[in-house]
């Protein structure tokens, strides 16, 4: 119950604010531009519909991860810097409950981004046979990735206690995770590229989207990637728990 109060406070502080809504308006404007460009008769529009859907799913996932990292960096370090964490610690709430409440707010934010993206996915993927299964994978893997990266960022925030430094490291992690996108197909097929793909949960998710939406492959092809992502999920939650339990003023 106390987790719910913390979550409610976080949502009101970060999401139901002018800044929070600005993020959502910008997100929907970018999705509007992307969808329109994809569908109107330009060179881009001659992409296969599966390709269009795949690219929009990647963008949405990347955005969810990025916002999770930013929220996470502020979670503890921001409260310490604003002087509000001590009052929270004085109250009879377990540190784990505080962390869970903040994680709940991050997931709420992801849920809103996902809800915003749904109409675009339906419009771009209209008639595409893998639309619904693609959306299901986006919902599940996107949620897992939001938890992984925000839990990691929150744990970092609790350890470093500096929002600026947490944010810098989180952005660096985001670039590392997104590295596969910057590599060419040839580079990704090298031993280094393959290892990066294998260990990177973000790459695992986008490769799964590729496999499901474009290649129409079933769950058995995705099982090992999903397993790796689940492994990262448990690892990130463990890291958060340990970081928060050691947090002292």
């Amino acid at each position, binding site marked *: 119950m106390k987790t719910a109060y913390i979550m409610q406070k976080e949502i009101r502080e970060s999401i139901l604010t002018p800044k929070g809504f600005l993020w959502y308006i910008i997100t929907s404007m970018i999705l509007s531009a992307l969808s*329109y460009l994809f569908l109107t008769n330009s060179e881009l529009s001659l992409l296969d519909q599966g390709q269009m859907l795949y690219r929009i799913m990647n963008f949405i996932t990347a955005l969810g991860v990025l916002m999770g990292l930013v929220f996470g960096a502020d979670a503890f370090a921001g409260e310490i810097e604003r002087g509000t964490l001590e009052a929270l610690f004085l109250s009879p709430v377990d540190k784990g409950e505080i962390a869970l409440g903040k994680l709940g707010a991050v997931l709420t934010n992801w849920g809103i981004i996902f809800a915003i993206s749904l109409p675009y996915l339906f419009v771009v993927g209209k008639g595409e046979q893998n639309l619904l299964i693609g959306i299901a994978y986006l919902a599940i893997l996107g949620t897992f990735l939001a938890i992984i990266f925000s839990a990691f960022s929150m744990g970092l925030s609790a350890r470093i206690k500096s929002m600026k430094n947490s944010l810098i490291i989180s952005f660096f992690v985001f670039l590392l995770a997104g590295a596969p996108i910057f590599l060419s197909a040839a580079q990704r097929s090298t031993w280094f590229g393959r290892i990066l793909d294998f260990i990177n949960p973000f790459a695992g998710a986008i490769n799964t989207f590729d496999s499901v939406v474009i290649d129409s492959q079933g769950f058995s092809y995705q099982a090992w990637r999903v397993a790796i992502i689940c492994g990262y999920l448990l690892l990130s939650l463990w890291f958060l728990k340990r970081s928060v339990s050691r947090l002292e003023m």
Partner: protein
Amino acid sequence: MKKLILVLSMIFLTIIAYYTSASAASRIAVSINPPFIQANMGDKITYVGTITNNSDRAVNNIIAYISLVNVTPGKEAPLDLEDWSANKAIKVDTIPPRGTYEGQWPMRLIDSGSYVAYITVVDKNDNTPLSSDMSHLEIKRILRLNPNNVLPVAIGEPVFIGMVFMVIAFRRRKRVK
């Protein structure tokens, strides 16, 4: 006498050489159809290449492929067909004597402009590849203003989110001082 033998040998060799080289050119013939296409961007078309074996011997292991060249003024260049066509080259195992082979090259028209298409046949036993006549291809650009009904979503959703925010902000401003 010696002179006569020399001349006759030269004539004979010339005839053989001519026959050998001429046989490559005259053994296979290739044509492309249709000779002219006018279509829109995004359309799917199919070129049919007909390879005819004009000789009395079977022709084996030949490769036929299609090429597309952009002849739009200012954009002249051969095209990389990766996005246009999945099967660019066809390997034909054998064409019987006096037989024909018809190959199909389906294509998706990716970009607008003026193009020429032709089919080339390669026989590894010959020195010279053989090309068909050119087929002319005119692709028109068509502007679609509201494909898949995207506009209501593209315009409506940001506006909707903005309105939700304004309602929340207004209600809070009314309550707090």
